[in-house]
């Protein structure tokens, strides 16, 4: 029993140390924002990597998710509600839930793991120490541009995902379920609210910053060679994905109720 308590105490202490360390990195990022101009090239480069680099994947998953959600909505509702409601429900589901969460999870894998392994490799090959020795702050030079790129590009990807998912869902509804375009557009117009788009975008800014922060943090804290890089990438994906789902609850609650 005593050993168990010591073990749990140790784990709890390690957890709080990690949280405190993350907080310190966060504060350092905010402080480094005064040198934003100095890091402009890195920010542009990271925007390209996070945004343009993720475009094909986002396109693919949004198209198939949009079609799946259209079929599912029609399947669940066709006996109870008029056809135009399929359009209404599809749009709201895509904007509020599907695009932000799905993209958050997929990008936690693609961007979060990529950032963690890139920075982790830099850490174990002394490139981060080289930056420090050259009087360049690794948090400002490596972490901050990635977080800013995440906060800017993930919302843009989410808007793109809204469009692709809705267009594909629209097409699927017409082809497979013989719902007329007029009915679909009527439903979309009837229940579309700009506030829903705002909620989706707020979520995506939070997820974009979060997954790049976690990736960068795990990368910069890497120790122990190739195995350490693997561990950092896994931890970045697992923690980011869990936090996306947990934060989704709190954000939805705060913004919609």
């Amino acid at each position, binding site marked *: 029993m005593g050993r168990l308590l010591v073990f749990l105490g140790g784990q709890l202490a390690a957890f709080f140390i990690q949280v405190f360390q993350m907080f310190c990195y966060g504060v350092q990022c905010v402080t480094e924002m005064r040198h934003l101009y100095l890091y402009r090239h890195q920010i542009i480069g990271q925007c390209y990597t996070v945004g343009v680099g993720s475009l094909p994947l986002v396109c693919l998953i949004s198209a198939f998710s949009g079609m799946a959600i259209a079929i599912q909505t029609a399947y669940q509702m066709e006996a109870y509600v008029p056809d135009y409601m399929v359009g209404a429900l599809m749009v709201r589901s895509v904007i509020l839930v599907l695009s932000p969460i799905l993209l958050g999870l997929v990008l936690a894998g693609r961007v979060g793991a990529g950032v963690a392994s890139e920075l982790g490799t830099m850490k174990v090959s002394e490139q981060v120490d*080289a930056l420090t*020795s050259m*009087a360049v702050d690794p948090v400002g030079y490596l972490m901050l541009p990635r977080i800013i790129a995440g906060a800017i590009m993930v919302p843009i990807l989410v808007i793109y995902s809204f469009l692709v998912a809705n267009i594909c869902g629209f097409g699927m509804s017409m082809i497979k379920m013989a719902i007329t375009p007029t009915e679909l557009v009527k439903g979309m117009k009837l229940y579309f609210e700009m506030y829903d788009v705002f909620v989706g975008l707020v979520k995506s800014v939070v997820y974009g910053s979060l997954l790049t922060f976690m990736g960068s943090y795990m990368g910069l804290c890497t120790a122990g060679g190739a195995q350490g890089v693997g561990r950092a990438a896994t931890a970045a994906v697992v923690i980011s994905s869990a936090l996306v789902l947990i934060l989704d609850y709190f954000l939805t609650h705060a913004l919609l109720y």
Partner: protein
Amino acid sequence: MANETAIEFVEVFKSFEAQPVLKGLDLWIPRSEITTILGPSGCGKSVTLKHMIGIERADEGKVVVAGYDMARIRRSELIALRKRIGVLFQSSALFDSMTVKENVAFGLRMHTRMSEEEIAERVHVCLDAVRLAGTEARMPVELSGGMRKRAALARAIAMEPDFILYDEPTTGLDPNTSSVVGDYILKLQSELNVTSVVVTHDMPLARRVSDRVALLYDGKAVVQGAMEDVEAANNEFFELFVQGKLG
């Protein structure tokens, strides 16, 4: 200028997760000379070097670099000090997403207001000094181990530093390339009149380039002084190290 203190360690202790590495290290490094820190693997040589650039902080004791107490140095002073130090890392640590030119130009772009033409000229001079002119557009992965070391050396001298720290400069290199690296250490010392600290366990390199040596063992400097004095002193630890029996 000679015999002025450049770097000093006074009773420095450092541990990593309760594993002591430095156990009361006293070390004196004079200005404008080449000091070699010798020692078997794992004796704390690289950790000592990292204290000199403020990447590691001592748990106890005092590290003074260029007159600054590293425990009390202000952030702005530390940044200014780091600009005066060039470091050649054991693994070269070239930024692998950048070309050789971008690597060498990195410090100049971040810390100076030099124009692109001036930067290109300076990069050319530095690469020429290590006989790597013409490799500007190549990526680090396209270079051999020796070329990477030389490119890293070009990067280390680009900001015209007052100190150059070499962390195991010949590790992983064949004897010929090691000899070439030794040549560059001497050449840069004579041309730039910098304070050089070479961390190595390569005895032929130490004999060739050192003005002074310090032998680290079990977290302490067991012997230090001018190279010829240390060799003549018949120190027990030094003899064992030379015979490859220490550690």
